């Protein structure tokens, strides 16, 4: 037998190896034998390791694919707490849905899949699974050092981080502070000042002078502003109360609401100018956000002056009607009066401020509160500047020979509802409606008027019809720019002076 030299390094090796590989060991050289066996062992071992690793990783991936689905069976209700966490967790269920749909065909055991995601057909499966796998791989990259795959950390793997946005907004607003302008209107003697003091627990009217007899005969409607800065738990509120003394007091009250509508329009106009100006950094927002209108409890419903006032103002400001001095009415009378007023508001087509609908996924308790709030409009309120002793406690109330009226007792009056609505739950909504609805209406009207006026003027000058908005020439533009600069400088100076005065 001829021994064939099998050189492992020969170029023709592969072909020879495949075809002519001797299967008997004896034919091989001793050295080859020694080299061959370890080589085979090493290669086999390496391949085995590779396969093992592969399987191990796959298994791990499968495990991870199952875990997120299990974690997000949490109730949405418990999640809807503050704004921050809700937004963050809102992002996660979306991913969970994708992950869940991806893993759904794999394991059919879980039942409550998020609504709308369950009927995902298999055609979409591939993309979703791919997406899930993709996120999972990024998650893995992110948490490659993880030793303990718990549930909480599993869904942090899908955490992008914009859930903290509401917190950032919150922090900035707290620093900047809020402002709120409230107008109170109604005849004298209906308890407006007392109610405002009770609402904000301050004494805004301590140095109010009541007019004497002669001054009263010729009294006209005035607009008086009181501004106060209130701070509570680090949140600053700049509260402006616009009072309207003299409204409805004269013998002839024709158009007694005109000064009030003029004032509101003025504030809108000022804001409009500021907004259209060149320097918009320090715009002062003096627009009236809410108007509390006091209805006298002594009538049988709305009086003609009430109807006319509300009709003149319902397109300009949020009107919240209140029944003043409700301690002169017994409960059946209050019910009748409220019904009567609601009917008349509908009959005359007055658009009072409507509370926004609450979301359908809120708690039952919240929805119940909201319903109660809507049913008790208009609120029957009682105000008090004095603190009296009732059942061993000191409460805000009024002391009568026949009993004590507690202002903050829900069974006695609707003061608590009004305060919660105005301050605790709907203040921001009131501001939004003012900005989005009333101000925009005013602005649209204003612009329409301006354009129609311009077309009219132009038609007078030349018989040829021109474009509705001719561009102003450069000179006037320059003038406008200069004036805006001046205004801005003056505003800054004023603010500096105000700051100095406050510091003193």
């Amino acid at each position: 037998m001829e021994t064939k030299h099998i050189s492992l390094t020969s170029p023709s090796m592969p072909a020879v190896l495949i075809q002519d590989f001797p299967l008997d060991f004896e034919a091989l050289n001793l050295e080859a034998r020694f080299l061959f066996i370890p080589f085979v062992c090493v290669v086999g071992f390496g391949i085995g390791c590779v396969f093992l690793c592969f399987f191990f990783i796959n298994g791990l991936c499968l495990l991870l694919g199952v875990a997120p689905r299990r974690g997000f069976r949490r109730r949405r209700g418990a999640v809807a707490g503050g704004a921050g966490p809700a937004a963050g967790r809102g992002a996660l269920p979306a991913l969970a849905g994708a992950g869940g749909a991806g893993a759904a065909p794999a394991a059919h055991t879980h039942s409550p899949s998020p609504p709308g995601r369950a009927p995902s057909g298999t055609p979409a499966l591939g993309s979703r699974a791919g997406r899930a796998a993709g996120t999972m791989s990024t998650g893995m990259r992110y948490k490659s050092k993880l030793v303990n795959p718990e549930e909480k950390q599993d869904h942090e793997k899908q955490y992008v981080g914009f859930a903290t946005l509401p917190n950032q907004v919150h922090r900035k607003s707290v620093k900047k502070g809020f402002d709120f302008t409230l107008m109170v209107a109604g005849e004298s003697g209906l308890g407006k000042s007392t109610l405002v003091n009770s609402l904000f627990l301050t004494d805004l009217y301590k140095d109010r002078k009541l007019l004497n007899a002669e001054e009263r005969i010729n009294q006209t409607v005035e607009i008086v502003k009181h501004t106060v800065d209130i701070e509570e738990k680090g949140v600053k509120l700049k509260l402006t109360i616009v009072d309207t003394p003299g409204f409805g007091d004269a013998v002839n009250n024709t158009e007694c609401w005109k000064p009030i509508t003029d004032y509101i329009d003025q504030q809108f106009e000022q804001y409009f100018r500021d907004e259209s100006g060149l320097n918009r950094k320090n715009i002062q927002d003096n627009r009236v956000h809410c108007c509390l209108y006091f209805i006298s409890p002594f009538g049988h419903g709305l009086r003609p002056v009430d109807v006319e006032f509300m009709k003149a103002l319902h397109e300009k400001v949020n009107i919240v009607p209140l029944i003043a001095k409700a301690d002169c009415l017994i409960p059946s009378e209050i019910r009748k009066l409220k019904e009567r007023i609601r009917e008349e508001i509908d009959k005359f087509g007055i658009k009072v401020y409507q509370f926004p609908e609450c979301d359908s996924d809120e708690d039952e308790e919240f929805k119940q509160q909201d319903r109660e709030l809507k049913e008790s409009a208009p609120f029957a309120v009682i105000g008090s500047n004095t603190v009296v002793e009732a059942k061993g406690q000191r409460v805000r109330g009024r002391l009568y020979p026949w009993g004590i009226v507690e202002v903050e007792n829900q069974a006695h009056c609707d003061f608590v509802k009004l305060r919660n609505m105005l301050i605790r739950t709907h203040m921001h909504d009131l501001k939004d409606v003012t900005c989005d609805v009333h101000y925009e209406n005013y602005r649209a009207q204003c612009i329409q008027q301006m354009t129609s006026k311009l077309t009219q003027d132009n038609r007078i000058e030349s018989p040829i019809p021109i474009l509705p908005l001719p561009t102003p020439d450069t000179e006037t533009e320059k003038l406008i720019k200069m004036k805006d600069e001046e205004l801005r400088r003056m505003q800054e100076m004023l603010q500096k002076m105000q700051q100095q005065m406050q510091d003193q």
Partner: protein
Amino acid sequence: MVAMAPGDAADGGWAAVTPEHGSSLEPEECSMEPSAMPEEEMPPSVAPSPAGCQLFGYVGIEAVLDQMKIKTMKTGFEFNIMVVGQSGLGKSTMVNTLFKSKVSRKASQPSQEERIPKTVQLQSVTHVIEEKGVKMKLTVTDTPGFGDQINNENCWDPIIKYINEQYERYLREEILITRKRKIPDTRVHGCVYFIPPTGHWLRPLDLEFMRRLSKIVNVVPVIAKADTLTLEERAEFKQQIQADLKTHAISVYPQEDFDQDPDDRVLNDRIREKIPFAVVGADQEHQVNGKRVLGRKTKWGIIEVENPAHCEFPLLRDLLIRSHLQDLKDITHNVHYESYRVRRLNESNRPALSPLNGLPGKAEGSSDL
């Protein structure tokens, strides 16, 4: 509840030279005043005055009081009251509570809904109520629509016109040649004006109304729905109202100028301190301490209408009915009606230079007042 004093115009006593004595104190304290004219008899209990003479026995003069009482009980009384105020101040309820029966306008038109009329209307409702054999023909005049409009200028004109019409009617009857024995009296004896309980001051409308009307009729101001004022607020409000009335020289009932003697003055001063009365009206009964009382039931207590610690309704009732009813009528007859008559007769006199002969023809040349 009989006011026993000579003052009723039943026997045409208006033509007598002696001034009428409208003393309307409590029934027990009825006194005949010594007048300037020496014809009046003096009761034996009065201290000897220079013009009279001593009686040395019982004559029986005081029996004339009994005769008068019997007569007035047979003929009955008439009382006309007007209630004025904005809608919803409880005028009808107050009238019902005062006379403890359903005498208001709303009681006689129960099906009508509450609607504010566009102009001031005047609606009179007449009832005859009887107590202990004494009959009273009570007329309540209501004024819906007063002060409810946006422009309330001259909303008092229909009321002034109505009052003057009643005077005119009486005057016509009076100057007839053959007069009736008892002229039907529709003149307004008292006008109750309801002030809304603002707690601050009198409004221009209130001042204007009271100024004009206190000259032609007895005005009794009251604070309506006073259960909305605490006791301190009530006291402050009253002080402010009294100051306002003084500043504008408005004289409400009881007027200071018509106090006839020191006793009257003391009594009326006490009343004047409390004017205007803070009243609460109620027509429902509730159980308090085992008794049924008229009141309003709220979540924090029951307001008893007849409890002087709660509100001043008893004082108003006493003033209007128990003590000063006859006085109201007398002042209406002697003061307000007389001034109207003088005005009217002067007016109709001026075009003709001859003195008035009491002919009806002259009076019919009338000019509007």
